[in-house]
């Protein structure tokens, strides 16, 4: 079987890592449904997830029958389509579960068919790759980046309008990683990030002042255009001013999440409850865990959002540090394999797409897994291949398919690390 796949140009390790992660994930969704609850509403979710997986495999197979050219061609329509859905969802979106206030679901006739934001991530990656690949030179100035930034800004703002902070962070991650991969220099990336950093540092006057000194030094050294430098400084100043206003505009639960992140002992009975119980679950797992399906934190429902946001806490509780290590190793292997795909792609577009997909997954993994340990704020973004949810699994496997296609068309050159 592997030889047949190889002959067809299939990247066997990549496929294997993704398959193992998905099987692992479905097993955890099954386990998450095994509770002492009177109603077994979640007990059969794994079957649905398995069904979605089979559909996702078919979709992936279909994509692999195409070519990178076709994917590149599809970038525009897909991008417009997903942006259209994001706009639509602003008006007809419905909330789900604990995130009821986030109108991020698209439903027809009361039946939820998916989260357009998931598709928008892939579409934005494709579109951004197209725009960046079309350029001959690496940009030296921020103003030259208006096209790629616009491509990200549209879906990003639409997602922000849904108050989906987690997904918005993913877009920022995608944007920076792909710009980096496109050869944008460090000073430019730093300048681009500076308003955001200002926004975060504005809550401490001292830190903000220090940041301004650093930024000034950077400008003296890099010497951007006058207009560009002035705009940048203005942006930083205004960010510092609007930060408190923006804070006021956040929902109380979002404020709580950020406060809990900064100080986990803050109101542990309410806002910190989820993170606290997640840490208890993970910590009590020990080296080998309590055994598959046997975690008491999960079984007795102390652990919230067991199927989705906190599914990795179930891994930690039931399979221990060993189970966690296996999952992390699989993710690491998949990601390193993805960088290989990116570095061996035969053109700028596929290379950028591979890196964009890696960026999206990385942000998901860092934010989601970091959140289960209280290292990241609780933003409620799912863990790829693990979290229960059809559209996200589908998009993840579409991404895998795109990577496999790129890999198949890539150069056979060994890269520096020999991976």
């Amino acid at each position, binding site marked *: 079987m592997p030889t047949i796949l190889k002959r067809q140009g299939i990247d066997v390790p990549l496929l294997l890592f993704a398959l193992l992660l998905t099987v692992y994930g479905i097993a955890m969704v099954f386990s998450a449904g095994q509770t002492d609850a009177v109603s077994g509403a979640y007990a059969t979710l794994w079957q649905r997830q398995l069904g979605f997986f089979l559909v996702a495999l078919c979709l992936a197979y279909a994509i692999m029958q195409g070519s990178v050219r076709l994917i590149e061609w599809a970038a525009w329509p897909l991008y417009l389509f997903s942006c259209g859905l994001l706009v639509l969802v602003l008006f007809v979106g419905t909330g789900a579960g604990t995130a009821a206030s986030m109108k991020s679901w698209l439903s027809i006739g009361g039946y939820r068919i998916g989260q357009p934001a998931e598709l928008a991530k892939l579409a934005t990656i494709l579109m951004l790759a197209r725009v960046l690949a079309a*350029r*001959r030179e690496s940009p030296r100035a921020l103003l030259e980046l208006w096209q790629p930034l616009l491509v990200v800004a549209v879906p990003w703002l639409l997602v922000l309008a849904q108050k989906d902070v987690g997904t918005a962070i993913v877009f920022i991650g995608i944007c920076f990683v792909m710009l980096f991969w496109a050869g944008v220099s460090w000073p430019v990336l730093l300048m681009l990030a500076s308003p955001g950093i200002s926004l975060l540092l504005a809550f401490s006057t001292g830190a903000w002042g220090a940041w301004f000194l650093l930024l000034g030094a950077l400008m003296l050294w890099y010497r951007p255009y006058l207009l560009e430098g002035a705009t940048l400084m203005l942006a930083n100043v205004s960010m510092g001013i609007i930060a408190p206003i923006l804070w006021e505009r956040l929902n109380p639960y979002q404020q709580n999440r950020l406060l809990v992140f900064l100080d986990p002992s803050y109101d542990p009975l309410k806002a910190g409850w989820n993170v606290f119980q997640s840490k208890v679950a993970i*910590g009590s797992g020990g080296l080998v865990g309590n055994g598959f399906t046997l975690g008491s934190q999960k079984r007795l429902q102390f652990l919230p959002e067991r199927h989705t946001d906190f599914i990795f806490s179930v891994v930690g509780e039931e399979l221990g540090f060993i189970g966690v290590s296996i999952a*992390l190793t699989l993710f690491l292997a998949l990601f390193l394999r993805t960088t290989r795909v990116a570095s061996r792609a035969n*053109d700028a577009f596929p290379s950028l797409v591979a890196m964009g997909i890696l960026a999206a997954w*990385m942000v998901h993994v860092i934010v989601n897994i970091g959140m289960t340990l209280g290292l990241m704020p609780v933003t409620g973004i799912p863990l790829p291949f693990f979290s229960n949810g059809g559209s996200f699994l589908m998009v993840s496997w579409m991404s895998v398919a795109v990577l496999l296609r790129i890999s198949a068309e890539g150069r056979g050159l060994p890269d520096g690390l020999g991976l």
Partner: protein
Amino acid sequence: MSFHPNEVLRRARVARGVVMAVFVALGGAFFRTQVLQNAEYVLQSEKNRLREVPLPGARGIIYDRKGEIIAENLPGYQVSIISPTVDSLRSALVALSRIVPIDSTQQEQAVSRFRRSPKRPAVIFPDASFEVISMLEERRVEFPGLIIQSSPKRYYPDAVAMAALIGYTGEISPEELLLPQYSDYKPGQEVGKAGLEKQYEVKLRGTEGRRFVEVDARNRVVRDNGVRADEAPEAPPPLRTNLDLDLQKYAHEYFGDSLRGAVVALDPRTGGVLALYSAPSYDVNRFVGGVSGKYFKSLLDDPGKPLYNRALQGTYAPASTWKLATAVIGLQRGLVTMDSRMPQPCSGAFYYGRVFKCWNHSGHGDVTLAQAIAKSCDVYFYQLGLKIGLANLVAGGVKLGFKDRTNIDLPNERRPAWPESIDYFNKRYGPRGWNQSVVLSLAIGQADNSQTPLNMARFYTALATDGAAATPQIVAQTPARAQILNLTTEQLQGLQLALADVVSRGTAAGAQIQGLTIAGKTGTAQNPPHPDNAWFVGYAPANNPTIVVAIMIEEGLHGSAAARVATKMMERYLKAKLTLTTVTND
């Protein structure tokens, strides 16, 4: 854009470095949480899921001196419920009340128990009937937090005979919880409320066991056995007492329903309390775990005042039984011998400012001290009192312990009343409100003198033995005796002979028992406007006393009536003793 292979390789190296750094950091964070901090989180996880259900421990069994059971434990059931909040407790109570009757008081009690310690299951029925248990067991699935467990119930086989000393147990009250001696008690636990149960709480208290149930995030019980090994409750070793259950029951029978009074029986050599009874009595079993308002009210309304412990708290003028104290003070001061006569023979009355009558209006004639004791001649003792003088008589009484509690090992003993000095009269009646004639009344055990039957029994333990009074003790085996009579052997023997004469040919002659020499003194205390109270304090066998009995019958008219009961009890005790071996405390 720059996609020269060398550029791409350089950036790929950076990307791989970042990815690996991120995963190493995540792995490290999980290692720290799962391996290094594991114990801490395991503890927290256990705390999350386990709730402790206390298993009440049985209290220690109380035995009498022969090994008869005075207090024991019967199997009982307790119903409690685990609730996350007061609101859910209330709604559970409402739901439960559709199956078994729970009145509003019980509901409020359960809520207040929950408020006082929300971590423990709130007790609904401390002592549930088998009926309630079977009804609840049937529908148990509907109430996941419901806990039914055995809870030993205190029981006194001879509750009515024992009421004066045994006390009872009940749930610790919020007020008691604040006291330092109950600092390690938790709400809902059982505690001795009175009598021996309270006095020996430390020795009688059972050690509470623990059971664990598993609850979910909403505090509903998911599993209630095999979660963790139970810790079994433990009962303390039994408490052995000096009491004689047979004698106690005999006293109860003798007093019956109509007589009111008290009896105390002591072993004069050790101070061991053989019996302590107050009549009328009541069923102390009905007090265990909380007395019903109806029963309590019926006891309060009873004209016989059964809740009034006459043996410990009842103080009565000791009347002629106190003449021995006057005699002792006179002998100690060398004012009289057993053969001394008084200047004025008894003609039935004595004039000192006014006429003081003798109980025998026809008079006793010229009598010695020994005869005066046997005949209980008031006129003789009036003159002896005058001879001693008020100050000396008062001081002598204080020395003999008539102003002090006996320090029996029971709570709530009342202090007897006796003037501490002449100042007492000044304070009480004003400097001109009294005169020396009070010494006449004091000398015959009247006026400002009221003693508990227990204290009179204590005084006679000194007369019965070598002049040392024994502290009454229910549990302790080591005698605590104090020499209070400062008399020569001849003087003491003279008094003892006179006391024996009281029963053989004196005022208690009608109370003789065949084959038993009994010594003692009757007393007939004026109790206006009511009929006289009857006293008898004595001991037997007269030559080597092993029992002292003090008995007081309210409105018993004459001491000879009391003497008949007392001598019967002595007979009962001494004859039973010949056939039964005693059980020693270990």
